[in-house]
């Protein structure tokens, strides 16, 4: 039985045809994967389905009835809930208050808190979460927050829950937990639309999938009838030979940067590792393993409590990012939009901002030098943009990320720390970023790579350092690593403790 039929949905924005005659059919109780490159129209379609925006034309039939959605509230009333990638919880309120936000029990002047928390507890139980509903949301982990969002969706008696890239922030055990929750929800008769860039998950969790490209539906199929290549072909629109660049035998040089007994109180404990010239070092671990904190310390963005970071054999006194950059260490931060780029500024300004001295003389900017530098970076990294004057916001996720990498290149970095460089980037653009990373290592630069996508980490890294809860749990050679091995190492001593 079909719970949802969207027929002939079209939507245009000024200058862009975002959706063209899209049909989407979802069966009751299934987990339906929705895949496609950035800009393929997945988000727009889901915004229409959740009442955030309205379609120009087309019909939505839900539970056998034609429905019209003029606002998110309409959608919630109909039984459609969406969990956005950027979670929409209020950090300073309790879990229970968040779940029933705006709908607390009782009268406005006398709330029945007992009911709020009792019902919250029941909802949380249904999603397999054991957090106390009186806990403040800001004290939860991202994974716990996800489950609170799901519980909130259930509180609306949702029949259909849309999950927009939940795995962008989860990995390993947290993700497995979410999958269990999804399975138990479907057993309760709830239907899930699952958006993801990670194909493994589609195979793992989804019954059917729909592939979108350029605002159209390419295909809808049972997952068991398709393979990885089929999906990639559908997303990219052409054959993508290999997802990852081939591993080339190479010679790595001498040690350039080392971290010795690094300690950040409460987060990182006695972490040591080193990276050599021309080497790609992967930092593997779950969210909360201290990966990002370590990266930021290396780069001088945050302070640490103990230990030492040595660069080119000498103690690195990177008390701020400026010193790290001038010494030759660069960071591609976790969140490119808020930390890597100035999205409202043109590509040119973004590319040159980490090395203004190279485009100036005696403190005065040299427009032509800057323009040429930006042009050549765009060419080297094959950044797809009409020109260097394009606003960075208008670029696709993958190309935005290349701009951030380009910024690091222009600062003449010798060690580049990449924190989640392919998060929210589609398959085609991912491969281009992988090629750039290989290219960097080929030029003798050292890369420290952080990723929640362990396949990607394994395929790219020459060596992996496995972190868990702020400790180094072991080291693996790139060629011998598998996700299982990483997990095994990460959790090795835990049972014993």
């Amino acid at each position, binding site marked *: 039985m079909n719970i949802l039929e969207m027929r002939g949905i079209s939507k245009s924005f*000024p200058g862009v045809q975002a959706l063209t005659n899209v049909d989407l059919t979802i069966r009751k109780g299934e987990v339906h994967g929705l895949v496609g490159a950035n800009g393929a129209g997945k988000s727009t379609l889901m915004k229409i389905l959740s009442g955030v925006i309205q379609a120009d034309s087309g019909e939505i039939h839900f539970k056998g009835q034609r429905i019209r959605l003029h606002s998110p509230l309409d959608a919630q009333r109909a039984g459609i809930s969406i969990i956005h990638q950027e979670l929409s919880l209020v950090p300073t309120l309790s879990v229970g208050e968040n779940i029933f936000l705006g709908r607390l029990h009782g009268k406005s002047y006398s709330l029945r808190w007992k009911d709020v928390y009792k019902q919250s507890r029941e909802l949380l139980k249904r999603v397999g979460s054991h957090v106390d509903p009186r806990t403040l949301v800001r004290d939860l982990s991202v994974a716990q927050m996800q489950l609170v969002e799901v519980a909130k969706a259930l509180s609306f008696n949702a029949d259909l829950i849309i999950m927009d890239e939940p795995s962008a922030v989860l990995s390993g055990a947290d993700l497995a937990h979410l999958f269990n929750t999804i399975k138990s929800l479907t057993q309760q008769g709830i239907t899930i639309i699952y958006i993801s860039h990670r194909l493994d998950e589609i195979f793992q969790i989804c019954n059917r999938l729909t592939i979108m490209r350029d605002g159209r539906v390419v295909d809808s199929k049972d997952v068991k009838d398709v393979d990885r290549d089929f999906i990639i072909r559908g997303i990219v629109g052409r054959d993508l030979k290999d997802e990852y660049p081939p591993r080339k035998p190479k010679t790595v040089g001498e040690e350039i940067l080392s971290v010795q007994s690094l300690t950040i109180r409460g987060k990182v404990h006695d972490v040591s590792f080193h990276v050599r010239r021309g080497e790609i070092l992967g930092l593997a671990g779950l969210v909360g393993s201290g990966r990002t904190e370590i990266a930021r310390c290396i780069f001088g963005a945050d302070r640490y409590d103990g230990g030492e970071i040595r660069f080119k054999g000498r103690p690195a006194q990177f008390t701020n990012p400026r010193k790290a950059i001038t010494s030759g260490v660069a960071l591609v931060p976790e969140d490119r939009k808020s*930390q890597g780029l*100035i*999205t409202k*500024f043109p590509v040119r300004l973004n590319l040159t*901002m980490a090395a203004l001295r190279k485009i100036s003389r005696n403190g005065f900017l040299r427009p032509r030098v800057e323009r040429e530098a930006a042009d050549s970076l765009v060419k080297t990294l094959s950044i797809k943009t009409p020109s260097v004057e394009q*606003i960075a916001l208008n670029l696709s996720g993958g190309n935005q990320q290349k701009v951030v990498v380009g910024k690091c290149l222009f600062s003449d970095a010798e060690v580049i720390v990449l924190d989640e460089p392919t998060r929210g980037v589609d398959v085609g653009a991912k491969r281009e970023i992988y090629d750039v990373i290989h290219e960097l290592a080929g030029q003798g630069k050292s890369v420290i790579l952080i990723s929640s996508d362990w396949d990607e980490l394994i395929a790219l890294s020459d060596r992996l350092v496995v972190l868990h809860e702020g400790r180094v749990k072991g080291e693996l050679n790139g060629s011998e690593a598998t996700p299982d091995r990483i997990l095994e190492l990460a959790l090795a001593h835990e049972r014993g403790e």
Partner: protein
Amino acid sequence: MSTLELNKEAPQRRYRNLLSDLGPLLGLCVLTVVASIISPSFLTKQNITNVLNQVAVLGLGALGMTLVVISGYFDLSVAGMLSLANVGVVILQTRFGTLLAIVIMLLIGVLVGLVNGTILRVVRGDFGASIMITFGVGTILSSVALMSTNGFSIHAQEDALFSWFGYGRVLGISAPVVLLFVGAVVLHIVLRHTVFGRAIYLTGANFEAARLSGIPVYTIRMITFMISGFMVAVGALIESSQTVSASPVVGVGYELNVLAAVAIGGTSLMGGEGNIIRTIIGVLLMGVLDNIIILMGLTTSVQMMAEGVVIVAAIFLDRLKSARQLLGRP
């Protein structure tokens, strides 16, 4: 780096930015036309000079404030700074002579900026902190100004140098106008053509991204405060020279007038964009408005109301436009 240049390749945005650049200019033109219809004496050389002389003090403060605002902070200490420099130069004049008094006051202006910037660096202050810290520093300065004259206005000693700031002429143009013009040109060049200027925009547009790109964000903001303090000190010299006296309450309300001029010109109070030309337009707009009211023989209470209306209208229209931009974006 005007927005026009930023957006060469995005015609829609360029069109919108053209509107936002031209809006205040259009307002200024309309106001000028209205003024010349209402009062035939408006377009006389004498009156135009008057308008320019009267906006010089406001304008100098607004120029410095433009840099502070683009970098993502506010400087509310300008009010106290104006009062202090105003009485300070007159008091110091008797002891050290005019020249040294002027130099000391200008240095104090820079020093106040240094203090503002240092405190905000130490507390890692955000935009909100800049409002409170500079307000506090400004209040202290006001109090020092009041204490040093026991709350009374004092008379200045006129000499050639002192009078020059209010009444001097360079190539037939009055000194306040020349000072305003020079300040505008210099700061325009700084913003548009120097690494420092670029860093101001980057800092204001995305503080964290700028910091992670190695921009010394707090130092940049500190220098904008120092420039702001200096500009206000120059403004104070003009003020005391024009009135041949000094009042310890001359700065009351000055900080908000300065901010209003910056905002009316179209510089975003959220930082990261704006330029000197916009500010000059905003300053002239306020100057012409005041002048009309005086020419019409209306009271200061009407003047206050008109200023209020213009400020609200300018920000309202600007917000309306950006709200539409946000909604129109896919």
